[in-house]
């Protein structure tokens, strides 16, 4: 312990004496650590953003689409037949223990008009459950109620993008917009959600009561007046996702009277799983960036070793003198080791600061979200210390095992 304290003092003194060189040696580590911090920040920022997007969809969601059907050998794509109904949705919500909510929806493209402005957007006919299920909140006004759905009232809830394009800055609540020649009162505006994981603008939407949408806007399906475009199902918890999917399949097969051995006439998809793949790829990218940056940290370590070797050679006489006046080999070893570790740790701290600054600049000017975790800061600090020990050991050993007689005569 005492040896270590002495070594620290001697090492700090030696580093002060060679300021420029100490600074240049540290530069390698500074750049290495800064690169690791910034790259890991960018990577985890990207991962976080994707996670946010996934969450913006809503949690524990399963989507049920009307299925493909095999009609005389011609297979129609998903949604090709109107097999899914509002009653199916109600049954799912009430009969399946693992399902919290089930919200039917119909959708279609429309042109919406307000005064002199018009805008092409998507209309979704939904029930109030849809709001809960998708984690939508209202930034102003009210969402429509079950009574609105039952009575097929002409109330509309607008997404932020639609509001911007039709109303600009003025308040849309209470105004009347025309959709397919039908006047709707704007009941409320949704809080913006931003982009979905697939890159769609989730705010470019108008929500209508599903009954109104089917009867007045999109037109009911000719074959089945109660057919819907999709049913969104929310499981009671993330763990219940698999159960919820099984129950959905069993219930719908029963309701649709599908005999065992025949294909489903609907498709069930786990939305979270679909987007988790994207998250994984972002994570891989983050790891890759971090790994590449670590290489520069190792290069910085080699820089330390290089300078320490030069330093040992240059200070051969000093080492000889120290040995002659009573320094033991372990004193010399720890002196040079402490010098290397000090260089790498101080470089590490500066590198962390530079890295954080760089991440802040990246997120500000490149508008790329970054995320500095305490984990990455601590890990970089420890890693830079380890680099110092690893690359400092060989030069320190070389110094400690110099022959004092030869070292004293060294020119």
């Amino acid at each position: 312990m005492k040896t270590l304290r002495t070594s620290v003092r001697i090492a700090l003194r030696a580093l002060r004496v060679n300021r420029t060189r100490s600074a240049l040696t540290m530069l390698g580590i500074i750049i290495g650590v800064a690169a690791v911090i910034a790259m890991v920040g960018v990577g985890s920022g990207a991962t976080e953003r994707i996670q946010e997007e996934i969450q913006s969809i809503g949690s524990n969601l399963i989507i049920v689409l009307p299925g493909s059907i095999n009609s005389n050998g011609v297979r129609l794509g998903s949604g090709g037949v109107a097999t899914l109904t509002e009653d199916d949705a109600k049954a799912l919500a009430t009969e399946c223990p693992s399902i919290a909510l089930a919200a039917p929806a119909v959708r279609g493209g429309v042109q919406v008009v307000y005064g002199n402005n018009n805008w092409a957007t998507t209309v979704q006919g939904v029930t109030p459950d849809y709001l809960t299920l998708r984690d939508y909140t209202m930034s102003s006004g009210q969402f429509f109620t079950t009574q609105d759905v039952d009575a097929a009232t002409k109330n509309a809830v607008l997404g932020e993008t639609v509001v911007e394009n039709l109303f600009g800055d003025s308040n849309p609540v209470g105004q009347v917009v025309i959709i397919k020649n039908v006047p709707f009162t704007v009941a409320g505006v949704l809080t913006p959600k931003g982009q979905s994981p697939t890159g769609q603008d989730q705010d470019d939407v108008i929500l209508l009561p599903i009954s109104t949408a089917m009867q007045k806007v999109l037109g009911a399906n000719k074959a089945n007046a109660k057919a819907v475009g999709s049913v969104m199902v929310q499981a009671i918890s993330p763990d219940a996702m698999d159960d919820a999917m099984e129950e959905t399949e069993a219930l719908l097969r029963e309701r649709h009277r599908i005999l065992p051995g025949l294909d489903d006439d609907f498709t069930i998809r786990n939305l979270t799983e679909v987007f988790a793949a994207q998250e994984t790829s972002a994570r891989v990218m983050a790891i890759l960036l971090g790994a590449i940056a670590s290489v520069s940290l190792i290069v910085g370590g080699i820089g330390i070793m290089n300078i320490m070797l030069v330093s040992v050679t240059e200070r051969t006489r000093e080492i000889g003198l120290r040995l002659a006046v009573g320094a033991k080999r372990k004193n010399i070893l720890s002196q040079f080791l402490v010098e290397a570790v000090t260089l790498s740790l101080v470089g590490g701290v500066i590198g962390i600061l530079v890295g954080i600054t760089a991440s802040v600049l990246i997120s500000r000017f490149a508008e790329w979200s970054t995320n500095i975790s305490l984990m990455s800061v601590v890990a970089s600090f420890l890693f830079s210390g380890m680099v110092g020990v690893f690359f400092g050991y060989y030069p320190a050993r070389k110094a400690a095992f110099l022959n004092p007689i030869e070292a004293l005569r060294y020119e």
Partner: protein
Amino acid sequence: MAPVITIQDLVKDFQLGEVPVHVLKGLSFEIDRGEFAAIMGPSGSGKSTLMNILGCLDTPTSGRYRLDGISVEELDSDALAEIRSKKIGFVFQQFNLLARTSAVENVELPLLYTDVPAYERRRRSLEALQAVGLAGREHHQPSQLSGGQQQRVAIARSLVNEPSLILADEPTGALDSRMGLEIMAIFQRLNREHGITLIVVTHDPDIAAYANRTLHVKDGRLQEDERSTHPRDARIDVDRFEAEALEAEPIKAGSR
């Protein structure tokens, strides 16, 4: 009184490739406490090797070496370091001061490897600097000091751990004759006033003349052990040198 150094049949061989070189071929002598001895010999005589062994930087091939009653010949490198730290002070021809490090910090260096606490280190270093007449220059760096002053810092460094023995290897070799005389005067004073045991290794008979005893080494053997009861007094010689310099006009101010 027990001698500081007892050497018996000291032999040192070096292996140069295939050929063994016999550098020291059986030396025996004793040096008493308070002696001021010079080891003289031409280059290649083995005096540097002898000096390295005396300084515990090297071990003999055979023979015995007792320093302060301790048998040094079988010690390992850490134990030798301990001996050097406690019992030996070195003065080198090239001073070997640490650059960009103040005089007092240079003097402290040997104490960094001992248990002496920081304030005591500083106190003893300042005292040692005072003993060599460098009071007031404690915080000068070597580059701000003359050659003679640098060597005095080195002497202070050799004194600071209160060693049993100071070994000086050609201490005046890098200095002009006047500075060399000053250094010898300091050695004589330390020897007389503080009773410090001193060994100066030199090839210069004029320097050896200031010692009480001269050991002549040649071809790895002790050729002659010469004691002088009245060695030259370096202080008187310094004064004489200055008087001569004053007479020898003209001398420009500031030059030597």
